[in-house]
């Protein structure tokens, strides 16, 4: 068995060398495809991260009916705090709100002349644990009797979400198309080496090599193309992502970019393994097609 494995690898290298130019084309193609694949993966992860972070910073604001006493308001605050999904509730009394409002605008408007009495309600600023819960939490708060109105920036979040969804869908379509194109190129590259080695294959079959045995060198050749393409795209992506992150965090420090090394290495691993898989599949398909038309 050991001598067979050695044989497979030597044979794979042989045909690798023999069709060096086409092999290079296949490697470059697989590298480009994987880099685009990785780029989309990272973009989607980052956009999801940005939306998630912004959404979690968004508060939901609930307004009470104006004549609620402070004691009752405190009870409501407790009640809201116990609702599922609520992380934190901040209470602002109508007096505080009015004071703040006057502080902000009082100098520009002669408020006292227009409004004689505090027109503002008590407000609760509510932060949810998970932005997905916003609509649910908003609903349960507005169901409380003393609450007049609940507001949150649902639209903005929904828009960002649907944008991320669109990018994700486009990315998936692009990645699938690129993978198919890559697969085709790998299949054709290895097909050339299969044709170049037709006599070898014929002789192998003639002297009693099993199909599996004939296939292995070509599958290994595909794997080698995939591994090289995978490593190349990994290097390209890692270097460009790291430098992009540095520039982004310098220019736009508030933007939450993904720097979780475990997640990033997972992305790189997925990308490289996809390359290996594509190469292996390409080798398998092309040699299987060559072996099919025999009695």
């Amino acid at each position, binding site marked *: *068995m050991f*001598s*067979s494995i050695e*044989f497979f690898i030597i044979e794979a290298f042989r045909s690798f060398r023999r069709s060096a130019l086409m092999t290079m084309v296949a490697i470059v193609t697989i590298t480009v495809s994987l880099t685009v694949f990785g780029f989309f993966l990272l973009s989607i992860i980052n956009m999801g991260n940005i939306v998630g972070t912004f959404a979690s910073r968004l508060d939901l604001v609930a307004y009470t009916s104006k004549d609620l006493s402070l004691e009752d308001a405190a009870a409501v605050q407790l009640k809201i705090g116990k609702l599922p999904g609520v992380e934190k509730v901040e209470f602002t009394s109508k007096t505080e709100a009015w004071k703040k409002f006057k502080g902000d605008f009082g100098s520009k408007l002669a408020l006292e002349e227009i409004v004689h009495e505090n027109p503002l309600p008590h407000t609760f600023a509510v932060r949810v644990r998970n932005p997905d819960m916003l609509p649910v939490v908003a609903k349960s708060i507005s169901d409380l009797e003393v609450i007049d109105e609940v507001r949150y920036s649902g639209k903005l979040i929904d828009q960002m979400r649907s944008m991320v969804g669109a990018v994700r869908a486009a990315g998936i379509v692009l990645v699938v198309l690129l993978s198919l194109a890559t697969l085709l190129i790998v299949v054709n590259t290895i097909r050339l080496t299969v044709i170049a080695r037709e*006599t*070898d294959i*014929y*002789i*192998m*079959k*003639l*002297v*009693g*090599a*099993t*199909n599996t*045995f*004939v296939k292995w060198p070509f599958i290994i050749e595909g794997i080698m193309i995939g591994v090289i393409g995978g490593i190349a795209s990994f290097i390209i992506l890692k270097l460009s992502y790291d430098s992009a992150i540095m520039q982004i965090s310098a220019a736009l420090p508030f933007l939450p970019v993904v720097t979780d090394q475990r997640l990033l290495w997972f992305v790189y691993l997925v990308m490289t393994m996809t390359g290996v898989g594509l190469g292996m599949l390409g080798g398998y398909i092309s040699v299987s097609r060559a072996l099919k038309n*025999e*009695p």
Partner: protein
Amino acid sequence: MIELTNVSKTFSSGIDALHNISLTIGKEEFVFLVGSSGAGKTTLLKMLYREDLPTSGKVIVDRVNVAELNPDQVPYLRRNIGVVFQDFKLLPKRTVYENVAFALRVTGAPRSTIRRKAMQALELVGMLRRVSSFPNELSGGEKQRVCIARAIVNNPPILLADEPTGNLDPTTSWDILQLLDKINKRNTTVVVATHNKSIVDEMKKRVIELDGGRLIRDQQLGMYNV
């Protein structure tokens, strides 16, 4: 060892390559398959190592019905049949030794066995001195010897030769036939397809003649012509 019953082969183009052939070749026999080009000699040989399938009829090689063989089993059939070609089919970028060892490698044999058996086969065909030469450095006769070494390196019970002397001069042809005879005497069934009249006449072996895909003669100690 080899048994054909009512074997016919019609190619998809409609050409009748073999027509209702029945014959039996015993263990350790030496048989010439003669006939002009296109008589069906090559097609008949191909039926034996399952390079091609009969349209109808039964082909039995070493007690196995070749036509009904599961494709997974074909490699094991072929390890029992050595094949020699007119154009040698040596791998040009491999040395003599590698060409012969190749046939053992693909069966997954261990390295020590490969070395021993390949050297034995090369010794038998008288090519030990040229083990590191490449095929393009060899004469036609030498190439055929290497081809024969590759065919017998697995010690198959059957050796098929398709026009083994087609590209060789008379003296070399004679040497090659002597070699095949030697292999036959080492308990191997040998079937040689040829239209080399002088060799068939000289060897005085069993002769099976095909004409237009039909078996027209099967004669012990035969000559090329009746």
